[in-house]
């Protein structure tokens, strides 16, 4: 593999590590953007330039920005960072982390079973992707459309500020 891959992979892992260890949500988000960009590089090197572009535009661009604006809207500042610090005690995270590392170990073990001779990556044209998308996967595309539509409607419905309207299962809370 290219050294570029290793560099990108290292950046992705490191920045993701940073994401999950930050107390401040804003920092975490920004590290996540870095991580996503690094992944975009990796995608490019795996012969999927179109996907890399989408990653940058949709993920790092749209979704992350949406999150950032959301956080800004909630105006979470030092307090929440402090609270986050209080929550993240070793006692809390050691056991889940160990468990996840076991899981990782198993994944790695399984992945390393691949004994095929080293070969180059195969580049798949965006054209092929498009053909597949609107060929065999046309129904899935339709469904995705409906999903996005539902997302929009849902977001609109849930995001509305309704005074005094408690959700059904949140009624009678001791707020």
């Amino acid at each position, binding site marked *: *593999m290219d050294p570029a891959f290793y560099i990108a*992979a290292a950046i*992705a892992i490191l920045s*993701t*590590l940073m994401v*999950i260890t930050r107390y401040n*949500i804003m920092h975490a*988000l920004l590290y*996540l953007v870095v*991580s996503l960009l690094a992944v975009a590089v*990796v*995608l490019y090197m795996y*012969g*999927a330039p*179109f*996907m890399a572009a*989408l*990653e940058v535009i949709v*993920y790092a661009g749209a*979704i992350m920005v*949406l*999150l950032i604006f*959301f956080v800004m809207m*909630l105006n979470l500042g030092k307090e*929440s960072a402090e609270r*986050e610090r209080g*929550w*993240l005690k070793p006692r*809390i*995270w050691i056991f*889940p*982390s160990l468990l*996840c590392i076991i*899981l*990782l170990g198993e*994944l790695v073990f399984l*992945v390393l079973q*691949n004994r*095929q001779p*080293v*070969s180059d990556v*195969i580049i*798949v044209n965006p054209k092929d*992707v498009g*053909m*597949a*998308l609107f060929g065999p*996967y046309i129904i*899935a595309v339709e469904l*995705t459309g409906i*999903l*996005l539509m539902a*997302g929009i409607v*849902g977001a609109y*419905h849930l*995001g509305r*500020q309704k005074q005094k309207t408690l959700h059904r299962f*949140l009624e009678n*809370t001791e*707020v």
Partner: protein
Amino acid sequence: MNVHPTTAGMLLAGVLFVLGLISILVRRDIIFMLLSVEIMLNAAGLAFVVASSHWGTADGQVMFMFILAMAAAEVSVGLALILQLYHQLKTLDSDEASKMNG
């Protein structure tokens, strides 16, 4: 270094996924949890693309696109839900929203 590209890509995806998993397990802040889900989705997408390049077919990339679309929808609905939750509970602590216990 003679590492099979698929192996390397899969390892990277695995590591990213597990990092996301750790985060979602240890965080109480609901926005962090959403973030972690994004990490994991992204890792899964990466795995698909690696597989796509391994077999030389377009299916994996198609899947990546679907994941992307789903992530977008999820984030939009998720954020709206968080907003509601924040208004109701005045906190982003996911443990507070534990009324549906047995």
